[in-house]
Every structure is written in structure tokens, then in C-alpha cells.
């Protein structure tokens, strides 16, 4: 019997099996941010074990609330900063060089096919886009990861998702993953890895694959995984060119992590994506998904473009293409947060920031901020936000607020119209 990608990674990283079914894995990456790491640091100090297993395998960033907004967030940032210095963690990203963790760390080339990674953040599943096993964990798992470089897992089952057909004009990875979550339900993939296959994912860029894998957790999934291919190699090439004599050689090395054709899956789901239209969430759960057309006309107060789901350069390009030459409705506050400084600079160079500002958007520094209602765009009670983020839970962006999840192009069209709108119909809608 062949193996899935996750099974191959588990076998190659197995440190211990203390009980049947419990696998303790060696970690290639322990990723840290300032919300969930400081309490782990404080606990290690209290236990008189303020050590790190390997400062080169630990990467840290201040991203959730940055620059600090008050004394408490300043203390969290300081705890992470002091700890990174104390332990010579050289890959630490502070104000000015920091960005949203799941956009920044891939951009720096830290994640490779076959890697194991944990982070005290549920959207760590994003990094599976590189053919890695990456899982969100709590602070205690993170603490043990920092100290010992290991993490315990139940070996996950794998759900194979075959995405066939091709994406229609203006339909993107966000629409696909919203649709898939709608089909699976919010706990349809609990304790499972989602392994994405098929021509639709093969045609996707790494940015799009990260969007796809980012929301695996919204179906309860441990990790979303794409198969490493030449697109993966091309993205990583600047970081690996000294390790391999050619791209083909790198691809050969990475292919060992691809699932075997006779691998055993707990479920195989086939979705023909050809007829898919832009998707949006309603209500307070990410599996409450319907076509944008069915929600068209719903008024919104705020439009938020950014986050670890959709704050990358391609996302900003798609939104800017809709906004070009238009202005957003008077009744809407538009906020865009490029996910990293490099994305911000690229968007500046391409004139995208100009387009956003001309349209009436507020451009913020890279941060998680509004997505979880911490800063830079918290909703008031009764307000509605069209957002490119990943969670629409009650209270997520502010108590009493409602969040509709959608793609960057849909969000941009919604900003222009002031109401939820299928961006493919913006011309006919005759709004500014």
C-alpha cells in the first residue's frame, strides 16, 4: 500500500511512538508570534528551562497587533523581542520588517516540501501549500516545540480532494476553498489532512495554493497539502539554488513527498470546478456558503482586503483591477493591508497602492489587525464587513458585527457598489 504525503512526512520525522496511534515528530520549523508565544516563554522561565532546541529552526514575528497599540501589546512584543535576542534567533521580524506570519515565512523561503512545522496559530495549515505538514497548535505544544523540537500528533487520515475542470473567468482559489468548506462542513475534516489534487490546483500559483490551504482549518482539517511540482520549485528557487544543480534536480528531490498513486484515503472527493461562480459566506460559520449572486444587494459598512488568506500580491492585483478608475461608495470604509513589506513594496511599484488610495481605501501597514478584531478596523455592534479573511464567527471582527467572507475581487466590487456584488457584473451595475 502506498502512502499519502502526510504519511511520508510522518514516517520520515518519527521520533517516538509512546502509545499506539500517538506519533511524536521531529520539527523542522517552530514558528512564533507575539500573541501565543509570550506565555510559553514566561512558563519556560518559571520552570527554569528558558532554552530553545535550535535557534536556526525557530522563526519569530510580531504580526497580530503591530506597531503595539497599548501597554499590554507593547509588553507582548517586548517579551518576544527580548527572548529572540537572548536566544540568538536571527530570523526575528520586528516593526518595519514584519508581516502576517503565513505570508512572511513562506516569502522568506523557510518552508520546503517534506518539512514539519508548528505554530501557535490555527492557520499554520497554510504552509502545506509547499507539500509540508504544518499544523496549528496551542501554547503548550508550542512551548514543548521550542524546548525540545518535537510535537505529538494522532496520525491524521487524509481526505483526497480532486479539483477537476478549470476555473471560470474571475473565479479564484478563495471561491474554490469556500465552496469546498461548504461541502465538507466546519468539522468535516477534523483530525484529517486535506490533500489537494487535479488540474485546477496544478494550474494555481503558490499564492493561490496558500489561499486554498489556509482555510483547511475552517473544515476542521489539521493541514491542507498541495503536491510539490515545478511551480513549488520556481517559487523556492532563490532559496535553494545552491542546494541543487538544476530545477529539475530539485523537483526530483521534492517529488519523493508526493502521494503514491495507490495511497489509502479515508475519503476521496471529486469536485468539477468548471461551473463554479464567486462564493460568499452568510451567517456566523465558514461553511455557510452560497454564490455571491444570491447575496447581491446586501449593504456593507466596511470592506477589508488583506490577511493570511488574501493579502498577497496576486490578491491585491485582482482587487486593484476591479478598482481601477473607480471610487468606493460613500457609505463604505475600505481598508487594505498588504500582508508583508515586500508585498507592500511590490504593490507600490505596480501602482496598486495608488489605485487603492485613489479609490478611497485606507492602506495600513502589514498586520493581522482587523481580521480578529484587535486593531485597524474593528466593527461596531450591528455593522457588516465584506472581508477577504477566513473567519466569520460572531464577534470575530468586533462584538455584534457580521462578517461576509469573499475573494479580493468580490470585496473590491462590493466596496464600489456599497452592497455585496458579483464583480463580474460591476459594469452592468452602473455604479461609479
Amino acid at each position: 500500500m502506498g502512502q499519502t504525503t502526510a504519511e511520508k512526512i510522518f514516517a520520515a520525522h518519527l521520533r517516538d511512538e509512546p502509545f499506539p496511534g500517538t506519533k511524536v515528530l521531529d520539527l523542522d520549523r517552530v514558528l512564533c508570534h507575539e500573541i501565543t508565544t509570550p506565555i510559553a516563554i514566561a512558563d519556560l522561565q518559571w520552570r527554569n528551562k528558558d532554552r530553545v532546541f535550535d535557534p536556526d529552526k525557530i522563526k519569530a514575528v510580531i504580526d497580530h497587533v503591530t506597531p503595539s497599540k497599548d501597554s499590554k501589546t507593547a509588553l507582548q512584543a517586548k517579551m518576544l523581542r527580548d527572548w529572540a535576542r537572548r536566544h540568538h534567533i536571527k530570523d526575528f521580524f520586528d516593526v518595519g520588517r514584519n508581516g502576517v506570519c503565513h505570508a512572511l515565512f513562506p516569502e522568506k523561503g523557510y518552508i520546503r516540501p517534506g518539512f514539519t512545522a508548528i505554530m501557535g496559530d490555527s492557520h499554520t495549515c497554510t504552509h502545506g501549500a509547499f507539500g509540508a505538514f504544518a499544523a496549528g497548535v496551542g501554547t503548550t505544544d508550542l512551548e514543548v516545540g521550542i524546548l525540545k523540537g518535537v510535537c505529538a500528533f494522532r496520525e491524521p487520515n487524509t481526505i483526497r480532494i480532486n479539483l477537476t475542470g478549470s476555473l471560470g473567468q474571475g473565479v479564484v482559489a478563495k471561491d474554490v476553498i469556500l465552496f469546498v468548506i461548504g461541502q465538507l462542513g466546519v468539522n468535516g475534516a477534523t483530525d484529517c489532512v486535506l490533500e489537494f489534487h487535479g488540474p485546477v490546483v496544478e494550474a494555481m500559483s503558490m499564492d493561490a495554493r496558500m489561499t486554498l490551504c489556509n482555510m483547511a482549518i475552517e473544515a476542521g482539517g489539521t493541514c491542507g497539502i498541495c503536491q510539490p511540482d515545478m511551480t513549488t520549485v520556481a517559487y523556492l528557487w532563490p532559496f535553494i539554488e545552491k542546494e541543487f544543480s538544476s530545477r529539475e534536480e530539485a523537483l526530483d528531490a521534492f517529488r519523493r513527498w508526493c502521494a503514491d498513486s495507490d495511497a489509502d484515503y479515508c475519503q476521496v472527493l471529486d469536485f468539477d470546478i468548471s461551473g463554479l461562480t464567486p462564493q460568499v459566506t452568510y451567517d456566523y460559520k465558514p461553511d455557510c456558503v452560497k454564490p455571491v449572486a444570491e447575496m447581491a444587494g446586501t449593504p456593507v459598512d466596511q470592506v477589508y482586503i488583506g490577511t493570511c488568506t488574501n493579502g498577497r500580491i496576486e490578491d491585491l492585483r485582482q482587487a486593484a483591477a476591479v478598482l481601477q478608475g473607480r471610487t468606493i461608495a460613500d457609505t463604505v470604509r475600505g481598508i487594505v493591508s498588504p500582508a508583508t513589506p515586500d508585498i507592500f513594496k511590490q504593490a507600490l511599484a505596480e501602482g496598486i497602492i495608488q489605485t487603492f488610495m485613489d479609490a478611497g481605501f485606507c492602506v495600513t501597514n502589514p498586520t493581522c489587525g482587523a481580521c480578529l478584531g484587535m486593531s485597524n478596523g474593528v466593527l461596531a455592534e450591528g455593522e457588516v464587513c465584506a472581508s477577504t479573511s477566513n473567519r466569520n464567527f460572531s464577534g470575530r471582527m468586533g462584538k455584534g458585527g457580521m462578517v461576509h467572507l469573499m475573494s479580493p475581487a468580490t470585496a473590491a466590487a462590493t466596496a464600489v457598489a456599497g452592497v455585496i456584488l458579483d464583480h463580474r457584473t460591476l459594469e452592468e451595475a452602473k455604479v461609479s
Partner: protein
Amino acid sequence: MKKTFGGPVITLDRADINTDEIIPAKYLTEATKEALKPYCLEDLILEGFDPNGEKLANARVIVSRANFGCGSSREHAPWVLEVNGIHTVIAESYARIFRQNMFNCGMLAIELAKDEIDQLMELEKASGGAMDISVDLNEKTITAAGSAGEKSFTFQISPFDQALVEAGGWVEYADARY
């Protein structure tokens, strides 16, 4: 150190209770577990539930439905339960990260079948909302008792999760072993 389990019950009769509802993100800037104490389940909107009420203040056990603890990985969710004396959650199922966080903290996330949770919910109602649950970790049984009667159920937890509960958490266990 091993924790104590069982006591007065509060029922939360809805599936998919997420960690934003258990502890809203705006409190994640607190640097100690103790500071989270007043905010337990603050954003949960559920008929008959009052986050500031005596029922929650006195509760030591939560009984709930499927996919409890979904969403954010924040361990602040089990912590806010812990500092409020709630060391036991009994539900139909859990989100993976929340479940592991509970055991990593040496706390119990017990799974029972839907009809068993139904029976616990009914007994609590029939007992006028006053029900206690005791937990026997050796026999793997829980016993619910109220004025309307008594119900016992057996449960399973993995040997690893049991070892974490016995050790008082994953840091203690891992530090002794790796």
C-alpha cells in the same frame, strides 16, 4: 500536578462553539492566565446563558455538542476554563487543537455519543438545571446526578491523553522523556 475533575454542570446546547466565543481575541493581550478569568464565554449568545451568571460561576463541568472549541488555536480557551475551575468538558466531539490543548494542560475533553449527551441535557433540565457530574478516571465512567435521577456512561480517552492527565500536562511529560 494532576487536576481534580467533576462537580456542578453547565450545559451549552449548541454545536460548533468556537474559541472566539469562549475567549474573545481582544483579551489575548493579557500576559497571565489569571487575568482572563472575568471574560469566560463572554461572546457566547445562547438562550438562557448568562456569562456573568451564577450558573457559570459555580460550574466545574461543561456539557456541550459537536465540534466544541473550533476555530482559533488559542490555548486561552482551555486556560479561561481552568482559571474558572472548569477542568472537564463533555461533548459529542471536539476540534483537534482545542482537544489537544485540554489534555496538554492536564484537563479532560471527554467524548460521548449524541444520544448520551441528549440524556445528560434532559436530566439536567428535569433536575431544574441543577446537576453534578463525577468522573472516575480509572473506570473511565462519568456519573451525572440531579433531583430527577442518575445516569452513568463510560468513555474512552487515548492512553497518551490519559498519561498527560496523570502527568499534569505535556510539558512535564515531554521534559521527562525527550
